[in-house]
């Protein structure tokens, strides 16, 4: 389940988490690091209706406690919004480049 859309400087995308233990410590580090590499404001939600949190804050991302099987929704606003969404959705789809892990 991957969707993406763009309007003006805003972009959205969603992707299903397949990682065994969900959006856990290592995946959250990777996700927030990647988000921080873009200038756009990037937000993360567990549903299209929000609530939305700052995808660059690991404290807030971890506080979501998103389990395996949750769908992550991203929305970005800024010059590199579309590229940011594409990169983040891709990271989750690649299972954070780690397959099984329990850290």
């Amino acid at each position: 389940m991957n969707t993406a859309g763009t309007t003006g400087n805003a972009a959205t995308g969603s992707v299903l988490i397949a990682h065994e233990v969900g959006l856990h410590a290592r995946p959250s580090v990777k996700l927030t690091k990647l988000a921080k590499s873009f200038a756009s404001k990037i937000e993360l939600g567990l549903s299209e209706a929000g609530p939305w949190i700052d995808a660059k804050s690991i404290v807030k991302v971890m506080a979501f406690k998103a389990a395996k099987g949750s769908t992550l929704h991203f929305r970005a606003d800024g010059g590199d919004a579309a590229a940011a969404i594409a990169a983040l959705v891709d990271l989750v789809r690649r299972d954070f480049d780690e397959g099984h892990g329990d850290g």
Partner: protein
Amino acid sequence: MAELRLHGRPASPGLAFSKLFVLPDRSSEAAQQPSGDAAAEAGRLRRAIAQAVQELEAVSQAAAEDAREILEFQIAMLSDEALSEPALASIAEGEGASASWAAALDAQIADYESAGDEYFRARAADLQDLRDRVLNALSGRGTEAVPAGTVLVARDLQPSRFLGIAWGEGSAIALAAGSPTSHVALLARARGIPMVVGLGADVLHVASGEDAMLDGESGTLVISPDAQTETSARKRNADFSRRREMAAAYALKPAAMPGGERVAVMINAAGPEELQPLDASMCDGIGLVRSEFLFHDGAHLPDEDAQYKAYRRILDWAGDRPVTIRTLDAGGDKPVKGLTLDDEGNPFLGTRGIRLSLLKPEVFRVQLRALCRAAIHGNLKIMLPMVAVPRDLESARAHLDAVVAELQVAGVAHKRPALGIMVEVPAAAIAIDRFDADFYSIGSNDLIQYVMAAARDIATLADYADAADPAVLSLIARTVAHGRQTGREVSLCGDAASDPAIVPHLLQAGLRALSVSAASVGLVKAAIAGALPG
């Protein structure tokens, strides 16, 4: 001093003999007097956080790859302003830096501790680590050195603290709280340091310098072990590496006795998370799922969907192997706040297991519905705990009938699972022919304590808890014989099956299906094959 035995959960295997070293609990220490100057306090906190980040970076540079990933997570959390925001807000209102930071982190820690998922719960230790590191930086005090080669006793242990300790021969970790899925447990396993968690607050009252034995395989800490305990444990220790090799050699093979007769070796599980790192081909199924993992103190009871999803994850892991899920076995030594009755003088003989479920049908039926819905995804069986008389089984069966009918009418996909009983009350074992269940599973822990009239949680009565006692074995043999005559499967789930020394007695009593802790599978298979020394 007589030996004192404490039981916890195994977190990292291995055996250690050394002296205890009790780590003082810092969380309750009085905070420093605030200066009264908000800007100064905010500055102190920012400098302390920066110092803590630097310390973690220094530890990280010297650390191995697995440790570095954990530290990177901690550094990212500590560098995130969202972590210090609530503390800075409270400093602006006149609180001191230490008190504000402790309160902000304690709120985060409490949030993680209440998580339904054990992996997220285990992150509370990471947050405690960050809390204490910054508090130490604020107070300017160093962390006390842990002598090498001691059994470290603490409430919980934080990863960066673990990495700062010089572990050596004889080192081990004994925690009052903690989790086998914590970062520290991961590190302890990788470094071969024996570790036991969940020993309870009693362990914090021991004195540094006492002799102790920690057995990370069985999850036991023995303080002042007597000569006999020490001799038998030292002998096991000498066998340890040999046993580890044997266990590894047998772990993934089907179990068979020397004559070639197959024995089913299943595993016990307390939730889907702990199964994830395991390879399902190691076992012949799951003989016991303790559904209590879904019911945490203080949290609201899990709804049908949450239960269905959890059961389904377990079935997905097992593939077509059988998965026996025990209905809620609360009460006794497993109270659940808001559910179990807390005014009973002897909870082991009280309203526990199926008795509680029949008293709270609104809770029981939600679980049965979730189980019937999950059953379409694999080979699920339902097992009832603490059945003493046939009407326990019949009443539960009536609830199951009703639930199946409801699902049918509502057009919800479901399947009626086999309904079996745990044989753990002596009344059930003695008159087993009265119980028209689809299968029997002997719960040896409770069966032993009820047959011997010796409570499991009284350390000085531990000698009575002998699975090889003739009275216990005769009840096991009786149940097996009735199962054979009537074509019902009989298995045993309980600590007795995980003990390689007891396994031959169980096979002798006729058992051909055992459900053991995942960590014991290799050893138990080696014991079944008659391949273990001594």
